[in-house]
């Protein structure tokens, strides 16, 4: 990249997260724990920004508060906040989020990815592209684009493997 879109982003540390609701005591062995916003956040927080060597969490692009989950209705809504209004990487970030959740959530989930309202100059256009499954499917058949997505996802996937091993 010749010139950075946001040369000096604000970087914050990794937040300690705790489940706001304790595990249901009536939840017996074999019962499935419903998927919640924290679980979704754990999946996406370590995705690397396409432009900086930082995680989406550290750049405040993703936030647990901007994730809505309705497990019973199999719906997940994730809003993300580009670091600058004219971020040309917004669609790529959205695509990374979509691919990550596509890979780690059961197929029954309907995932909606959108820009946090008011945080991007082309908000409607970015949202429309991210919602178009045909465009997303075609993008993921493009080896260069898929390579870029996989590079951004690599850190988050390593982390998941580490969690599994722990």
């Amino acid at each position, binding site marked *: 990249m010749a010139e950075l879109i946001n040369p000096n982003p604000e970087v914050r540390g990794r937040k300690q997260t705790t489940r706001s609701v304790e595990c249901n005591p009536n939840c017996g062995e074999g019962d499935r724990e419903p998927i919640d916003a924290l679980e979704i956040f754990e999946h996406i927080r370590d995705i690397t920004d396409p432009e900086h060597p930082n995680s989406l969490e550290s750049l405040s692009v993703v936030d647990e508060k901007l994730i809505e989950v309705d497990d019973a209705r199999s719906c997940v809504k994730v809003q993300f906040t580009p670091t600058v209004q004219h971020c040309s990487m917004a669609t790529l970030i959205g695509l990374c989020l979509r691919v990550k959740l596509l890979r780690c959530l059961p*197929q*029954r989930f*309907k995932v909606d990815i959108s820009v946090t309202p008011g945080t991007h100059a082309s908000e409607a256009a970015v949202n*429309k592209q991210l*919602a*178009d*499954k*045909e*465009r997303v*499917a*075609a993008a993921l*058949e493009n080896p260069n684009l898929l390579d870029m997505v996989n590079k951004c996802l690599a850190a988050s996937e390593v982390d998941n493997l580490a969690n599994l091993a722990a």
Partner: protein
Amino acid sequence: MGTLEELQTLEGHSDRVWSVRWSPSGDMLASCSGDKTVRIWTRQRSSGRWACCAFLEESHHRTVRSCSWSPDGRYLATGSFDATTAIWERQDGVWEQVATLEGHENEVKGVAWSPSGSLLATCSRDKTVWLWESLPMNEYECVDVKHGHSQDVKMVAWHPKGEVLASCSYDDTIKLWVDSDDEWICVQTLAGPGIGHTSTVWAVAFEVSGARMVSCSDDLTLRVWSCNFDDVGEPNWKLQSVISGYHTRTIFSVDWSPQGAIATGSADNAIRIFTETGTSPDTGVPGQPTFSLAASKESAHLSDVNGVHWHPKLPGLLASAGDEGVIKLWQFTPAELLSLHA
């Protein structure tokens, strides 16, 4: 309410099924998929069940998005994200690729054979619609390239009489094209506040008579358009009714049966059937029909329903294509027939 009964699940594709199309005589079903293949299904004489009888593979190297049968059922055209359209010919039960149509800059999203079989229309993410003439010896010649849409063109569909081609797009519009002195011109664009769809138009389908057309969209509505003729006899398509309030996610596919039922496939996993129920009590205007839900199947597929297509001959037989990689066959029975049988 009528019923929509599941008859059979056809398994075999290893990725999402994008589209299903019955052959003109109804003896074959073609399906195309993200697994880069096309499958042909026929009815087994012994069991009466549908089974896969042919794979069309190793031609497209990316998703096969759509397919269309020639009117005589001998050829199948397939459009792929690899930017090409392939023509397949069936001879003695064996399918062979006989032509490749190249020209689109990127993903071919829709392909449609004209009712006479002499023309093939294709559309692409490159925003264009191409018209190809079918010549002897499996030659195809591009006769026109139409610009006009400002975004990718999702689908093309021919009027049953073959004089009008409809295209619909990510630009939220539907365009109608006619042949005028060897050039295809856009005679009407269905769009705008209070008239057109407010998001991507995914598909259009004509009523069997050609008098009306239905479109479906990411705006969660269906729109029914009727063809009126003005003083000088030029066709003019007008919005006749809006069907809304049923779908909770994008409507990807719509088809109008020879018996008059409209079927939809949606990202909310449901298949819905609508039939006409007479004049609207709100407007009371003759010729302003309303459509109401005649049957529905929530969770028809485990995931998005990408395509629906009515059988051309057997009333109420519907095929659907699902994101989970399966095709399902359904029997729609309208309420009137159910009460007759009761």
